[in-house]
Structure formats: structure tokens, C-alpha cells
């Protein structure tokens, strides 16, 4: 699957600037001296002064550029304060909020660890934006199937290494971690484990930092913590033990079309993936497999009860069609009653 990098380092993006707006005409502009960055400029800007990074580049799209405007030449530009370009090193590969699925279907979501590119994912850095990615924290190696950057698709280790070592690569990738590609596709129809379990503490730390610290209080009693999720959630988890005939894509499509499209399940979201089976559950169930298929059901809106109904409908579906679907057994867990007034 494709995972697309969301943030950019474009000059014209207000979120990259102090005060959350692009420099106005006549502004004094400052890039941090010691932050390496590639900046795409897509529009024209009049500035009175601009301090450039010691190592960096400004790529000019056609029609873009810079003109000299004397300070305070526009009354609407405010006084004196320099527009500062925010630290381009603030975007971490392991932050789940910085990725979006390339094939987002309504009704589907991913657990936090799988929002970050998995072992068999193709990673896309859109070519219409400049970007900078921090590998790490931690010196571990991030492995994916391929990396598309600057319009090139890198799927051989030597090509990726050459790119990362080039000036273009050094302007865009930094940090103590390493990036590696393994062109092996996931050929198992029952799906492949994402492979981010080891990185999950870092993934959750990045996510929680963006959320401003700890996990928000779940709005229900006995909330659930699905495999790969950073915080407790309210909803249901259906765990499937599968046989050789199971096809993950087909089952995901079945959930979307046979269930989530029904009016009574509007507003529900489902995450379906193969996950490592927690050891305690492995012993309890007596199953030999060390992986299982995890189906996470949550409500997007405030309605209550439909998640439980859907979980039971899925169990009934499996009881009836399990053999044809390649599902050997299924169990479901549900969170408890809602806590009103919880955040």
C-alpha cells in the first residue's frame, strides 16, 4: 500500500511560519542558520530582508520569485517583527499524524503503528512539495518496500543509499536513524504484519507529543487497547484465527460493502490488519499461530451501541460463512458503557 508524507517545507505554506502566515510584502524573513532544508517557492514574494540558511536551497517553481521591497512598504504588513521559518527538523518519520494512506477509503482507518509506513509499504513524498524528514529518535533502521521522492522511485538499496548520500538526500533526510528498502512485496493473501512493533514506543511518543502529552481519557468504562494502538479506545475488537484460504483484501472489502455501507452502521470505522498475537492470548486460546487478524471497530460520531451490534453481526457472519472465508475461529471484545462528560 502507499503511504503519503503529509507535511511540507514550502515557502508558501502558512503553517511553516511563525505567526502562522507567510511573509507579507516588505517583511523581514529569517531562516534558522543551522537548519538544513530544501524550500519550494511557488509564488512571488516581496521582502525587505531575508537571512538564508547556511546550508539549504530555494527551488523556484515557474513564475515564483523574490522582489526587493523596502521595509514597511505595505501598511498591512505590520511592524518590525521578523517572519521566522519554523524548524524544518520538527517532522519525524515515526509520527503517525504526518502520513496519510494513498488509497484512503471512507470507513477504513489504521491503528497508530500502521499509520506509519509498514515493511511492505511504498512510501511517497509528493513531488509538488519540498519536505524534510527526521529518521529517529533512536538509531534503528526504518524498512519499507520503496521510496518515491523527487519523482524517482527508489526500490534498490544501492539507489536509495546513493540518494540519501547526495546533496538532495541530505537536504531532505536527517537524524540518527537509517532508511532501507527491501523490494519484497507482501505475497501472502492473508496479509503481512506491519513490522512496526519495535518502533511503537517511539511512534506513540511522537503521536502523544503532537497531542500535547498523555493519552486522552477514553469516554467509556473498560476501554480497549488494540494491538498497534497507542491509547485506549471505545469500540470493539474482533480477533480472527485464519486458515490458508483467508484473503485479507477480500475480507476488508466484504466489511465495507456488506456491513459498513448499511444505514445502521453509518459513521462506524474499521481497521483490519494482521497483527502479532499477544503471548497471553496465544496461550489462552491454545492457538499455534503467532499472528491473528485484528478487526477494530470504532464510532466516528457520538452514537452508541452500533459498534457492539456490528461486532456481533461479524461473529454471526463468521459462524455462517467462516469456512468459505478461511476463518477458523473468532472472538470479540467490547468496551464498557460510555462515561458521559468524559473528554
Amino acid at each position, binding site marked *: 500500500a502507499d503511504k503519503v508524507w503529509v507535511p511540507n517545507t514550502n515557502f508558501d505554506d502558512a503553517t511553516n511560519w511563525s505567526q502562522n502566515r507567510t511573509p507579507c510584502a516588505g517583511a523581514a524573513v529569517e531562516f534558522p542558520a543551522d537548519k538544513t532544508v530544501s524550500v519550494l517557492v511557488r509564488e512571488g514574494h516581496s521582502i525587505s530582508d531575508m537571512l*538564508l540558511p*547556511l546550508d539549504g*536551497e530555494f*527551488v*523556484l*517553481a515557474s513564475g515564483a520569485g523574490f522582489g526587493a521591497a523596502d521595509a514597511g512598504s505595505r501598511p498591512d504588513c505590520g511592524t518590525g517583527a521578523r517572519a521566522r521559518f519554523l524548524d524544518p527538523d520538527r517532522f519525524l518519520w515515526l509520527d503517525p499524524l504526518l502520513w496519510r494512506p494513498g488509497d484512503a477509503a471512507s470507513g477504513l482507518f489504521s491503528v497508530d503503528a500502521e499509520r506509519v509506513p509498514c515493511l511492505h509499504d511504498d512510501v511517497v513524498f509528493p*513531488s509538488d512539495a519540498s519536505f524534510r524528514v527526521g529518521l529517529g529518535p533512536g538509531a534503528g533502521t526504518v524498512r519499507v518496500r520503496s521510496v518515491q521522492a*523527487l*519523482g524517482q*522511485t527508489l526500490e534498490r538499496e544501492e539507489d536509495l543509499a546513493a540518494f540519501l548520500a547526495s546533496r538532495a538526500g541530505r537536504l531532505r533526510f536527517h537524524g540518527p536513524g537509517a532508511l532501507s528498502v527491501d523490494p519484497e512485496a507482501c505475497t501472502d493473501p492473508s496479509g503481512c504484519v506491519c513490522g512496526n512493533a519495535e518502533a511503537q514506543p517511539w511512534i506513540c511518543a511522537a503521536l502523544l507529543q503532537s497531542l500535547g502529552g498523555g493519552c486522552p481519557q477514553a469516554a467509556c468504562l473498560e476501554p480497549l487497547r488494540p494491538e498497534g494502538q497507542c491509547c485506549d479506545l471505545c469500540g470493539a475488537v474482533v480477533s480472527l484465527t485464519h486458515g490458508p484460504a483467508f484473503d485479507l483484501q477480500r475480507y476488508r472489502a466484504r466489511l465495507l460493502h456488506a456491513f459498513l455501507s448499511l444505514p445502521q452502521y453509518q459513521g462506524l470505522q474499521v481497521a483490519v490488519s494482521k497483527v502479532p498475537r499477544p503471548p497471553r492470548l496465544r496461550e489462552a486460546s491454545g492457538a499455534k499461530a503467532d499472528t491473528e487478524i485484528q478487526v477494530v471497530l470504532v464510532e466516528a460520531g457520538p452514537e452508541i451501541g452500533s459498534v457492539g451490534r456490528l461486532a456481533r453481526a461479524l461473529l454471526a457472519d463468521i459462524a455462517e460463512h467462516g469456512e468459505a472465508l478461511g476463518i477458523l475461529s473468532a472472538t470479540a471484545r467490547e468496551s464498557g458503557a460510555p462515561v458521559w462528560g468524559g473528554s
Partner: protein
Amino acid sequence: EDGGLALQRQKRNIDLQQPRMTAERGNLVFLTGSAQNIEFRTGSLGRIKLNDEDVGECFHQIQKNKDDITNLKRSIVGLPQNISNQIHQLDSKLVDL
């Protein structure tokens, strides 16, 4: 080659052809793609200056030097001919004595 790959390649070329201003350890470098130009265009009163030298004036001086050299060549070619005429005349007078 399928359409997707062609598009991808095209995008790549577009990106590589975009001009850029880069800083490398504090050096300022202006770069263009393989077949793109860097151009300076001045209005009638505007000037391009490189460390206090007016580039337009420099170009003008190069042309002036070239013209001066052409003229110098011409005078030097004419000079020996003129002198050799005078010497030849003297020689004739000597013979006539």
C-alpha cells in the same frame, strides 16, 4: 513504457529543471537545469553589479578593447610599408650618386 512511468519521468525532469538558489556552507549558488539559462535583464537605468563592478560597463569595455585592437592591427600593418617606402627612396638616391 506505461503511462504512469512516463508521467513519473516527466515530473522528475520538471523538478530537476527548476532553477534554485542554494547555500552551501555559507556560499550562495544560483543553479539552473541542463538546458536552462541564467539571465540578467536590466531596465534602461537599472544595473547589475558584481562586487562594485558594473557588469554592463565591463561588457562595454570588452567590446571597446576589441575595437581598439582591430585598429592597432591595422596601423601596425600599414607602418612598415610606409617606412620601407621611405628607405627605398633613400636607397635609390644613394645609387644615383
